[in-house]
Structure formats: structure tokens, C-alpha cells
């Protein structure tokens, strides 16, 4: 089983829809959970990160972590065409002082007007 699984999509939604992006993981040592947005031919841009379980909200974005299910989500409310990008989840543990992140493959999101 791969450490971090993420459906590559593409996920196509109409403008204004609520988008749900998800990742599952197998390593129970992961404690930091990050979401990045990557536009075509650009570097990843950090959107949010959470530590351990729970929710975190920032504007139209909400990140959720369910460690018992090893499942994380990113919700985008009132999606806009400018949200069209690839969304990468990443996670890391702090075992032995290591913070090496493991990335998912990314989900391609298309928001059409």
C-alpha cells in the first residue's frame, strides 16, 4: 500500500460548487498535514497546514484531519475558475526530528464558469 493516496482526477465542477479533495495515508506517525495548490508549470503554493487531528479554516478553504481513519480533506466553498489547479496533499512525522514530507500525486481540479 502506498504511503499517501490521492485520486488524480480530474475533478470538474461548476463555479460556485463546494469541492471536496481527499487523501488517505497508511503511516500512523504522520502528524503534520499540508495542502498545496500547484498551477501548471509552477511551484507548489502552501494553502494550509494542520497539526494532528481537527479542522482549520481559512477563508473559503477548510482542512480536516481524521487520524483515526487516516483520512484528510480539503473543502473549497464557492469555487471559482481561478481555483482550477492541481491540489497536492503532503504529510510528515516528527519521528527522530525528521520532517521529510510525503506528497500525494495531486488531484486536478477544473472549475468551469
Amino acid at each position, binding site marked *: 500500500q502506498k504511503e499517501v493516496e490521492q485520486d488524480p482526477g480530474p475533478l470538474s465542477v461548476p463555479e460556485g460548487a463546494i469541492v471536496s479533495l481527499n487523501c488517505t495515508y497508511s503511516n500512523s506517525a504522520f502528524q*503534520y498535514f*499540508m495542502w*498545496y495548490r500547484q498551477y501548471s*508549470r*509552477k*511551484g*507548489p*503554493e*502552501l494553502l494550509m*497546514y494542520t*497539526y494532528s487531528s481537527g479542522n482549520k479554516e481559512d477563508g473559503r478553504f477548510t482542512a480536516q484531519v481524521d487520524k483515526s481513519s487516516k483520512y484528510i480533506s480539503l473543502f473549497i466553498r464557492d469555487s471559482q475558475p481561478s481555483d482550477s489547479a492541481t491540489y*497536492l496533499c*503532503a504529510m*510528515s512525522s*516528527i519521528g527522530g526530528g*525528521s*520532517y*521529510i*514530507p*510525503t*506528497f*500525494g*500525486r*495531486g488531484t486536478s481540479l477544473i472549475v468551469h464558469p
Partner: protein
Amino acid sequence: EPEVTQTPSHQVTQMGQEVILRCVPISNHLYFYWYRQILGQKVEFLVSFYNNEISEKSEIFDDQFSVERPDGSNFTLKIRSTKLEDSAMYFCASSDTSANTEAFFGQGTRLTVV
């Protein structure tokens, strides 16, 4: 807004040649990273660097790779003898914490080995 800058944006090199990829991290950041992304695949961690030495490196970062901070602003990745499979996007990132949770990425250098 401060940003990580990388040069060149695209580098084409012949197999066996040495390449140096350059990065200027955000000025007050102390932790520096290199990642790579082979076309269509995951972003992969290569190496982290702090206080003028490597903090961590992945299995990918073998003896063909080296990093250096030659002055107060630049951070470089050298590939000594490039192979076809080194073709990828290489991203530099920097952060002001060791947890790597708020790393800012550059735009990347596309390396093509022919």
C-alpha cells in the same frame, strides 16, 4: 511579497554533463530544501539544508548530488553526471522553521537531459 527565485527556468544538458541549479531563498529564511517532480509523478523530497550543512536527505540524493550555499543569498543543487532519468522539475523551497510545514516553493527549473 517575498518569493523564492530559481534560475534557469529551463536547462537542457547532455547526459554525463554536470549541471548547477540555482536558487535564491527568501532572505530571512534559514532552512532550505530541494525537491524534484518527474513529469506526471509526485513531488519528491531530495534534501534539506540548515546552518551550512545537510539536515536530511532522501534515497534519491546519492553521491551524484550535492548542495551548497556559496554566499549569503544563493543555494545551489549540483548534479555531477546527469542521467536521462534526472529529467524533472526541480523545486527549491525555504522556510523559517525546521518543521517544513510552511515552506515556500520557487517556480522550478525544468531539467531536460538528452
